[in-house]
């Protein structure tokens, strides 16, 4: 281990000594470590190197924090070295941070300080960036073009589309999205007016730049994903050609007098278009100029008292459109009726005694085409068993039903739809409730994970009901060798113990198929407390 250069290593003293310390770093470094071999007991030096997880190169001037038996801070030197002297024996958690890097959980945590503690390596994951330039057909930069970044990510083992930001190009046509995690991204640019065109009053723009996905295609389905790895600087340039633009106009009805109307215009793939929407309060008419050909969703928002009003219109623009009509209507509300079917031996049904049902319901936009991914949480009225999902926009959703243990979902339906297996499509005028039946004769499962060294391991237990087209997997993560999952519905399950699940779409049965042979099959009866032993599955992903 290299000696720290003078002034390179900063030391934070234990808090109780703070008030007597001189405020000068040089003096601090020069002081002998008073605790060394003194009555306070033996102390040790803890040190190591901070490295870039991709290149393995040392990272200088990273802040290293120690938490545990001794709370310390040090900066790594130009060689990436850090050192804490006079550390008492015991456990600490080490963490490094620096702009431009993600802090990753140090696999050697917690660190045992003692005679055998060797030099440590702390990895920092470099952040990625996507940058580029937007130019016209002649190669000239186009300024103020909106550029949007969409990430494809996994949440709860499901694919999600997430907007990761919008930027406008600068006068050189440049844009840059930094601080990105490794992953799959999509870029879109435009629409944009011809910014160097002066128009006489009353004159409408006739051409503009369209909205395109990288590398220059009109929809997300044909867009090229941009895969970035840790630390990668990916370049993605756009060449936009001026194309005809159109004017879209019409009126909105159902508005309260004096109430304003808010407007949003989205592409069919869910990007919010920043074109101005001119609304005349007097006449209730609206107008959008400079719209390139394409498919859009126009939304209007207003309210009557506290009641939100919504209207939505899907447009396919290939010429000027006039006399479009939007009718504002109360936003859709979906009541939720929960029945508690208590099966527990020494317990009467608590349905009437509980103020609220022990369940949460979320709607998640299921449109994988990058449609807006908003989720609506329920609104509970105190003292009223009825829950309502309020102000739901029309669209297709997957319904997530999350009961509190020991309850599990026995059935959940919306009209004819079994929402445990199928998505629901919400449209104006539908008023039937979500009906949920909960039971409490649930089973629990304790899994023992066999790791090669016989000790505990960092593992993620995934418990998947069998025979479902879309599954709600139960996941437990931790450093242990036993994992317990409670409140499971009676039935057949596949149980997996993965070393890591990053990037694993575990709510998709097909994504789990390659690992099925390493899973345990268990059948759970009501109220059963089952045990299972498993081998750790290595997903082969880089830790």
């Amino acid at each position, binding site marked *: 281990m290299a000696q720290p250069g003078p002034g390179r290593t900063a030391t*934070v003293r234990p808090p109780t000594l703070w008030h007597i310390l001189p405020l000068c770093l040089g003096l601090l470094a020069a002081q002998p470590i008073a605790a060394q071999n003194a009555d306070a007991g033996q102390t040790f030096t803890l040190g190591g190197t901070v490295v870039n997880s991709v290149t393995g190169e040392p990272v200088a001037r990273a802040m290293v924090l120690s938490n545990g038996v001794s709370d310390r801070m040090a900066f790594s030197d130009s060689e990436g070295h850090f050192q804490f002297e006079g550390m008492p024996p015991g456990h600490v958690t080490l963490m490094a941070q620096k702009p431009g890097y993600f802090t990753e959980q140090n696999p050697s945590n917690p660190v045992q300080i003692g005679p055998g503690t060797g030099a440590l390596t702390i990895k920092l994951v470099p952040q990625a960036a996507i940058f580029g330039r937007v130019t016209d057909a002649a190669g000239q930069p186009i300024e103020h073009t909106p550029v949007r970044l969409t990430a494809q990510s996994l949440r709860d083992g499901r694919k999600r589309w997430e907007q990761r930001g919008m930027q406008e190009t600068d006068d050189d046509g440049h844009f840059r999205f930094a601080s990105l995690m490794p992953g799959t991204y999509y870029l879109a640019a435009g629409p944009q007016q011809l910014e160097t065109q*002066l*128009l006489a009053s009353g004159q409408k723009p006739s051409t503009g730049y369209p909205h395109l996905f990288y590398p220059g295609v009109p929809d997300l389905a044909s867009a090229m994903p941009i895969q970035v790895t840790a630390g990668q600087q990916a370049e993605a340039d756009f060449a936009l050609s001026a194309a005809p633009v159109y004017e879209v106009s019409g009126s909105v009805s159902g508005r309260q007098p004096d109430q304003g109307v808010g407007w949003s215009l989205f592409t069919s793939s869910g990007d919010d278009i920043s074109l101005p929407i001119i609304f005349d309060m007097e006449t209730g008419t609206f107008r959008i100029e400079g719209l390139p050909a394409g498919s859009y969703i126009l939304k209007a928002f207003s309210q009557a008292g506290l009641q939100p009003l919504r209207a939505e219109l899907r447009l396919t623009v290939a010429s000027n459109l006039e006399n479009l009509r939007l009718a504002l209507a109360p936003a859709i509300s979906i009541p939720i009726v929960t029945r508690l079917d208590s099966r527990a031996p020494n317990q009467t049904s608590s349905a009437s005694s509980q103020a609220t049902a022990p369940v949460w319901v979320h709607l998640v936009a299921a449109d994988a085409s990058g449609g807006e991914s908003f989720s609506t949480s329920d609104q509970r009225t105190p003292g009223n068993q009825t829950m309502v999902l309020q102000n739901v926009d029309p669209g297709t959703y997957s319904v997530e039903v999350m009961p509190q243990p020991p309850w599990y979902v026995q059935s959940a339906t919306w009209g004819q739809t079994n929402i445990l297996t199928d998505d629901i499509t919400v449209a104006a005028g539908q008023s039937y409730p979500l009906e949920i039946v909960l039971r409490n004769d649930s089973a629990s499962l304790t899994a023992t994970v066999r790791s090669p060294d016989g000790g505990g391991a960092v593992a993620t237990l995934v418990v998947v009901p069998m025979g479902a087209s879309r599954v709600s997997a139960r996941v437990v993560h931790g450093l242990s060798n036993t994992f317990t999952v409670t409140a499971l519905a009676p039935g057949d399950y596949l149980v997996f113990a993965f070393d890591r699940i990053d990037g694993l779409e575990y709510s998709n049965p097909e994504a789990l198929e390659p690992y099925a042979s390493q899973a345990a099959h268990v059948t759970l009866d009501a109220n059963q407390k089952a045990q299972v032993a498993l081998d750790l599955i290595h997903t082969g992903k880089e830790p």
Partner: protein
Amino acid sequence: MLLLGGLFAQSSVPPLPPQQQQPARIAPPPQGYCIAGTVVNSLTGQPIASASVAIAPLARGAEREISRSALTGADGRFSFAGLGRGKYSLMATARGFSLQYFDHHDPYATAIATGPESDSEHLVFRLQPDGAIEGVVTDENGDPVQYATVRLFHMNTESGQQKVLPENQAQTDDQGRYHIGHVAAGAWYVAVSARPWYAQNTRAPEIYDGSLKVVSPSAQVPQPAVTLDVTYPLTFYPDATDSASATPLRLALGERATANVVLHAVPSLHLRIHTGGAAESAAIGKMVFPAVSQRLFGGYLDSISEATTSWVAPGVIEISGLAPGHYVVEMPASPAGSNDKGGRAWFREIDLAGDTEISATEGPGFVALDGRILVGNAAHLPKPAFIELSNPDTGESFRGDLSERGEFDLRSNNIRPGRYQLLLRNAGGFYLTKLSADGAKITGRTVDIGAAASVHVSAVAAQGTGRVNGAAMRDNESFAGAMIVLVPQDAANNAPLFRRDQSDSDGTFTLSDVVPGQYTVIAIANGWDLEWANPTVLQPYLKRGETVQVPPGGELNVKVQVQ
């Protein structure tokens, strides 16, 4: 022609006012008049193809709207034919060239006159290419500094005195890079402010027993390491931490300049403010916090955004993250409670070189200024009229709305001693006269406020501002593009009485909303960089100017020799 107000067009065009111009009296020839010419790059003289050119007719009292637009051909030529007699505002833009008015000297430009005596068909429209300033901000270890705010301060004479004021800003990206486009030629200062990413300046509130004594040292909350209690001073390109020793970057037309800045962390200074007895017993919800600013370039007050303010004990506020330097601390009044009468507002100018404690009782209070504007002849001021008290040195400006009785009240504003200008705004032809003050000295339109606790200003609003129309001449020919200045008597104390314009293509100009009185009208060629409100600078031009006496409501015509 003055460029102000709103232009109705569908592009991001700088605004134009409703212009006040003589309506056309002579019918145009059947084929009309023509505005035509060539758009060229002012730097290279090369014609610019596909430039967008537009005209907006100027008519008195009418909204100014673009009436015609066209693209230049490959030879840079444009032409608008069939026009009536009158004046037109001419503008153009192209890739790499911001929208510009013909021969503009913001906020003025030369309007194009059409008519039998005017040649409006051989114009050379010189578009000035945009410049840019860009660079990298790094720390002393060579690491990029992200989220640094880079500001450009422009040295200019737009206000009539040479001033350095902030104009554009940008933030550095993850690589420490910034880029500011559309920068005009001229002298620019690049100022960078940032916080070290690892800085921890705020000290946790101390454990106290009601006084400011710490109960027991061991009960003290852990403090951040000394090495983390650092800050970056405001740093000017190339390497100065005070504005006086900063050197400007002289950007040529169309130039792209690089200005890299290295920030050096220095120990953060802590300024503790004991706000006084009343505030010490005040509830947290009633605590008020001070504003801290720094004086830049001898005047401009720049508020400090990087410092953190925290409440460390009852009635004690700590401002941390400050670099050594000269600061202005302004504390607003704290509201009165049931048991106290609230804290008074005060300010303090302080040089910080180390951790410092100050007490509210040491700082002078602000000046409580109010006043009344009397209106003669049973007239009424238009509703939007208001009083503006502005300090040209610091850039501060206070607005006092007028009550039915003409009263205005700036007592709750943080007014410090200084030289202020008093103006009546939005008053539609009314002007101030008979200015007087209790507690301050008034000379002309300037209010000299000393250490007085309160000042009461009185004035009379009279109706009937005048207008001076004129023509700039040289060798008996009309002269376009000259700077026209209407210079009041005792110019040093009457800055609000100045009026300016630029002569149009037929040499004519209009100075409107002129307060009645005696003036000298001067016309200067290539004088746009002059400190036109500086009496010493004006002196040599005055003797060849035209002296005019503007009566109330009067409209004069004058011919001025261009110097």
